[in-house]
């Protein structure tokens, strides 16, 4: 096993006086798919927001790619963010511009590549997610699954080392959700990315997870291999997989 690419230690956090995450510790090694799971309202999305630096915890430490996320200056953290891709729950594509222009945003903002090269890269990423023909369409003209895939193309535009995905399968039919999971697996294998996926879809978890972190009432109840989680005797974990 290599050095962990993400390391979280004793993370305590919440909103105002309410503690949402209570003493969470885990690590993610390069090339694995770590799934954060749990019932609704257990703090999954909050944890993800900490990992991508959108929220500040009360205490604890988060190390991302060898940098202490909580001690970085603004400029350093922006630099670090270029190695991270985020797939938001609803895609978060900009609605007023086409799919191709959406995918081009990070390339235009963070690189000095020529227009031709950017165009080639945009089509390459759209081809990887199987959306090349949708390039000139507006996000409002896409179906839910296509929108997620377009958002994924944008998230991987800069070849991130880590991809965070928030509920990639939410709101999709089982077939589309499965194909999106296959896509995530393919990207992991092809690009050697590390994935942190937040989800509560059991089918999706069984398909993609290497290791799982089970959150329950703000605590990390279980952290380990998926196969161990399925055999776990902990009451909430058992109920989650066998409702």
């Amino acid at each position, binding site marked *: 096993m290599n050095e962990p690419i993400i390391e979280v230690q004793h993370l305590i956090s919440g909103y105002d006086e309410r503690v949402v995450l209570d003493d969470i510790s885990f690590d993610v090694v390069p090339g694995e798919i770590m799934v954060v799971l749990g019932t609704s309202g257990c703090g999954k999305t909050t944890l993800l927001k900490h990992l991508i630096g959108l929220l500040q915890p009360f205490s604890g430490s988060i190390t991302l790619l060898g940098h202490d996320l909580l001690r970085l200056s603004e400029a350093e953290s922006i630099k670090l963010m270029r190695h991270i891709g985020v797939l938001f729950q609803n895609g978060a594509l900009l*609605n*007023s511009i086409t799919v191709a222009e959406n995918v081009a945003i990070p*390339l235009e903002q*963070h*690189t*000095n*590549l*020529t227009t*031709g*090269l950017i*165009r*080639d*890269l945009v*089509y*390459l*990423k*759209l*081809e990887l997610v199987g959306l*090349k*023909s949708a*390039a*000139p369409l*507006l996000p*409002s003209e896409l179906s839910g699954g296509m929108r997620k895939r377009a958002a994924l193309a944008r998230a991987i535009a*800069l*070849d991130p080392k880590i991809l965070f995905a928030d509920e990639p399968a939410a709101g999709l039919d089982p077939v589309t959700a499965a194909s999106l999971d296959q896509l995530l697996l393919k990207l992991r294998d*092809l*690009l050697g990315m590390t994935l942190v996926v937040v989800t509560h879809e059991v089918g999706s978890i069984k398909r993609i997870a290497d290791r799982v972190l089970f959150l329950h009432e703000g605590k990390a109840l279980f952290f380990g291999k998926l196969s161990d989680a399925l055999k776990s005797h902990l009451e909430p974990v058992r109920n989650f997989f066998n409702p």
Partner: protein
Amino acid sequence: MDTPIVKLPPVITHQQTEALRKKFKALFDKKQFSPSVEFDFQEVERMDSAGAIFIQNLRSDLEKNNVEVIWTNLSPGIKRTLKLFKRPVPPVFKSEKKNFFEKIGETGYNLSKYFAESILLFSNIGYWSFLGFFRPGLRRKGEVVNQGVLIGVNALPIVALIAFLIGFILALQSAAQLRQFGANIYVADLIAIAMVSEMGPLITAILVAGRSGSAITAEIATMKVSEEIDALTVMGVDPVPYLIVPKLYAIIITLPLLTVFANIIGITGGAVIGVTYLDINFVAFFKEVFTVLRYKEIFTGLIKSFSFSIIILLTATYFGFRVKGGAEGVGRVTTASVVASIFFVIVADSILGLIFYFGESAF
């Protein structure tokens, strides 16, 4: 001539490609006629998608110029990267360009479609506005009063302020001219006629079009986008009598009232100039106002503002129902609605002004 060997750097990512491009450009200008070039991948450790495409673009560019390209010492990892990030063939999208006649035809078709849509909606509103008057159960409860407050009462401060300033400045501008003839007292005539038959109805209508017309469009468009209109329809509630008709009643009642209010404030604004700048007695000013105002001016002003209220509501609802797409569609129709309703208000004002002027003998 020997094959020149180009050593590639250890890291080729999107951060390095631009520098490499410049470096290679200089290189190939000199060796333009070399029949082949060798790229040495010995030191390359890391390459991302941007780097891979750059290297492949370089190769195809050179091959186009009849230069043979040789890649040597590729590690398995780099080979995989190059294979994975193949240059995509840009898809060909059939061009959407229309010729001149197609454009004319499309415009004509759209205009006739919009016209038919609007006539359908307006007749629907007209039908329900008569029928709904006798069947208050079809409206949302208390909605006429509610809308009356939103459209009329809440607009009072801004209408008062604007009307006062318009009357004030109109008097000031004309005072300078009238003074030359010693016709100071006629400022009262001018302000009275101008406010009551023209400025009062017009500025009130423009203000209400901007304030409430946009609000009505945005409300209906949002309801349509979030399928609330569909929900009402499947519940067996016709959205026109339920949503639109109360607004129509509210605006028909409040806009003429607002206009009367604006007229009074506007004339007061003129009186301020008359008293302070032209030394007209306050009582004499209003005496002059009441002698010059005939019923005709008052009625034409009210008829105008009644027509404007209907125009504003119909334009606002029409654009609200025409919304397409999501949240950005709501913004688009709202802008279009305000522009259109102000335009139609001014057009209607001109037409009514002509009718009242030349049809004077009929009154």
